């Protein structure tokens, strides 16, 4: 375990030197404050302007969902940028042959940040959510959001051969977030076209309050992670 913590400490030192650590900590807090106080204010102004009873209020849950996903997503984004740099400079290959190992390398770069951000998400959501969240739902969503962020990072690092491709893939990986919007805007069965996206099941879990959605969310997440991990592992050899 010690090599993993050392590798994680190395990662933290690296992102704190780049100021990314502070950005990753501060940005979700700003977003939470904006969602909690800015969105209701905007809603009141919009409703007054358009003379409607509700405009954004129907989507408060969606804002909460974005808040739940934001911290792990940002933390894992910083991780993927570090992994891309380390892969370009052959550092990840060297680390993989130390006691850290291939799996350990990814655990220290992705799983540890995701775990930390899971706790941060729970705290942010319980303090700043716009809707009421039962604790089991909050924990489930934050856990799935962390898994989802690991998956997105793996997508970036496993499908790119260098930093430039990495930035290009990270642009496309934003599409994975689309699933969050689907249950809120597509009400017919067409929505199941997006069922390969874990984000779709996370949103469905919150929207329908159907705890059974946790199963497909876990299944799709682990499936993606498994496939992408194998791809990344090959890259390291």
């Amino acid at each position: 375990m010690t090599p993993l913590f050392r590798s994680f400490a190395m990662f933290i030192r690296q992102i704190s030197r780049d100021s990314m650590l502070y950005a990753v900590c501060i940005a979700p807090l700003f977003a939470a404050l904006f969602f909690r106080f800015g969105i209701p204010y905007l809603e009141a102004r919009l409703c007054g302007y358009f003379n409607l009873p509700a405009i954004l209020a129907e989507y408060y849950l969606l804002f909460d969902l974005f808040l739940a996903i934001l911290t792990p997503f940002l933390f894992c984004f910083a991780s993927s940028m570090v992994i891309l740099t380390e892969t370009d400079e052959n550092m990840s290959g060297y680390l993989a042959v130390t006691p850290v190992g291939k799996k350990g390398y990814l655990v220290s770069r992705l799983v540890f940040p995701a775990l930390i951000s899971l706790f941060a998400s729970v705290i942010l959501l319980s303090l700043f959510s716009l809707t009421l969240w039962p604790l089991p739902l909050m924990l489930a969503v934050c856990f799935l959001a962390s898994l989802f962020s690991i998956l997105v990072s793996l997508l970036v690092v496993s499908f790119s051969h260098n930093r430039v491709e990495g930035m290009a893939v990270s642009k496309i990986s934003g599409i994975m977030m689309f699933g969050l919007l689907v249950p809120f805007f597509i009400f017919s069965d067409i929505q199941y076209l997006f069922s390969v996206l874990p984000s779709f099941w996370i949103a469905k879990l919150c929207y329908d309050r159907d705890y059974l959605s946790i199963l497909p969310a876990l299944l799709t997440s682990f499936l993606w992670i498994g496939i992408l991990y194998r791809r990344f592992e090959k890259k390291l050899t």
Partner: protein
Amino acid sequence: MRTKALFLGDVRFQIKYGFYYIYLFFSILYIGILFALPPQWRLTAAILMIFSDPAAMGLYFMGAIVLFEKSERVLNSVAISPVKPYEYVLSKLLSIGFISTIVAIAIGVASDVITKPFFFITGVFLCSCLFSAIGLIFACRISSLNQFVIATIPAELIINVPAIAWLFGYQKSWLLFHPGISLIELLRGSSSALPALIILIVWTLFFAVLAEGIVKKMLRSVGGVKL
């Protein structure tokens, strides 16, 4: 001649690393979204899309491009070659401006929002060059992708926030001096498009010259030695 070769090299680089495929995908996606929106929203949505993505492409990718060139020692070769810093800057700006403009035209034509093609095309091209020049200024001074992402946040906020506020109705005339707002007026083909074009040219030239100075400094000190 050298600029042409550098330009072609940069275009080849962008093709090789998937810029063109990615933007083909994004163009189709954006056009699809535009058609899914009510027709009265289409113009505003198209402007927002063009402004925030193809036009701002340079600010997003420049860090990765320059860092990659640094790690592959491309800049070392450029530094000892007869290539002048302004040629290097020009090639970067033109090659990204080229793909940005193609994508913007595709989105604009498909969603039928182009009213004055001259202002539309020059607006996107100049704004793309401006964003790329700003990206280049930051990219020369950083050593990691995370540093670049953090460094560009203030620039993105300064350019994007007033422009989006303008798009949604906060329209004070003095704001026309803002480059992002100038682009919006050019894309709209409004009556103030001509002054907006002049303002955007001035901003782009200013940042291109600034970028050239910083690239010159960077090329003098690649590899840790002053050339």
